[in-house]
């Protein structure tokens, strides 16, 4: 019983928290999107030239 009460209480807290930060989160979300777009602009210069061969040759022996 105590367990269930606690879960419910935290649910309400979470909603309140969510409202508070939703505006600020939207702004940072846009900024992130823009940053990822920037990386996508330059990613082809960084990605290995022959993707297929690179992926095929990436073989590891097991470890641990």
């Amino acid at each position: 019983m105590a367990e269930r009460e606690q879960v419910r209480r935290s649910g309400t807290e979470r909603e309140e928290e969510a409202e508070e930060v939703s505006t600020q989160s939207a702004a940072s979300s846009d900024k992130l999107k823009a940053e990822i777009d920037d990386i996508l602009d330059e990613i082809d210069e960084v990605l290995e030239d022959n993707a297929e061969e690179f992926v095929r040759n990436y073989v590891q022996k097991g470890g641990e």
Partner: protein
Amino acid sequence: MAVAKVLGIETEYGITVPGVPEANPITASSSLINGYLAQLAGRTSWDFVDESPGQDARGFSVDTGGNIELETHLVNAVLTNGARLYVDHAHPEYSSPECRTPREATLYDKAGEEVMRRAMAGVAALNPHGPAIVVYKNNSDRKGNSYGCHENYLMDRQVPFGRIVTELVPFFVTRQIVVGAGKVGSEAPGVSIREVPFQLSQRADFFEEEVGLETTLKRPIINTRDEPHSDSQRFRRLHVILGDANLSEVATWLKLGTTAMVLAMIEDGELEDLGISIVDPVGSLRRLSWDPTLKATVTLADGRTMRGLDVQWAYRERAERWLDRFGGEALGGDDEAHAILEEWTDVLGTLERDPMSLADRLDWVAKWSLVQGYMERHHLDITDARIAALDLQYHDVRPERSLQRRLRMRRLTTDEEVARATTEPPPSTRAYFRGRCLARFPSQVAAANWDSMIFDVGSDPLRRVPMMDPLRGTKELVGTLLESVGSVDELLEALGA
């Protein structure tokens, strides 16, 4: 009362020799480590006397044979930061020094990446016309071969192992929604990329048991290896093989911080009545990993179903109560413990509302954002080789090639701190004594181990200094002595060894 969560991470790095696909990975790993060591003045070999990977926490022992030890003798070094750098099977491995706080352990994990970068440069310097060696901080080659990133936590021996299992498994099954490193497709037998285009964890596909001693086959969620590397009457070292190698500093810190907190809660009896027991933990681990929408649920023994996030919230609620009651000393102090709890809460809340906005903090989200963005931009299918390449290159340790680095994710460290941590030990564990002895008397340290040092003082027999308590040998306890003595003889005399 919870014991100090002395902790650290061992990472096996992926290794390739571009243009030489037939290159022997053991030779390449040895060359890499030699490349690093060549830049250093001296080197010390590791002492295997007390290694017993076959010792099982459930109270029996398995003969592991001699092969592994033979192989690891190839190249094996102790660094002045207290870490161990060696060849493990077919991988270069960096075992961080013992740290006192999750934040410190995060720094020393990042220092491992810097060691690898310098090792690559060392290879190029030794052999300017030879092939380069490139390392990746990931856990799978996307072809069904996995290699580990193991965490270690000091625990109180008095807590029955069975209780650790019961109270820890639900946390372990679900923590990947925060700290998974992300992977395109699945390597579980018979599961196609159509069914699982992207998943949270690198490792979930490879786990087959709930509890066990193995690390290379039939991998268990809870590993029972019982090698405390300390006083076995007082301590156990929980060896965690479940995790992914994280690039994100926030994810690494949360992985260490929340796990250390849950372990301290178990020791303090805070979770004895948590009442969450997951039916089919292994299947649940995969199902959660395979669902980046985070809607997948686990079934509990009492018939309820919960999302992974719900289970994490339940642990978080208890963590708050535990912190109020017991304080954060087990995690290195109240500030650290409260900061972890705050970040954990914020991340769980953001995962509820807008998971993709965590692209600057969590590895799986960052990678998934890149994959989706790249697919949209070029109208690619998830099966395109460029997506697979992107998946691997997220983990490339070279700064100019690392996709993770380009994302400019939130940092907890600075480049200067990381560089310093490659040579200077953490001050607050026995790693300080190990590292400083090596720095001051490199030619007289005959061998080092986690729990002892062996000195060569000339004509006398070798002298062994035991370090059975991870919290002794700190800067506070031996710093002044270590810097004031003029020789190993003086040091040993002062220590009474």
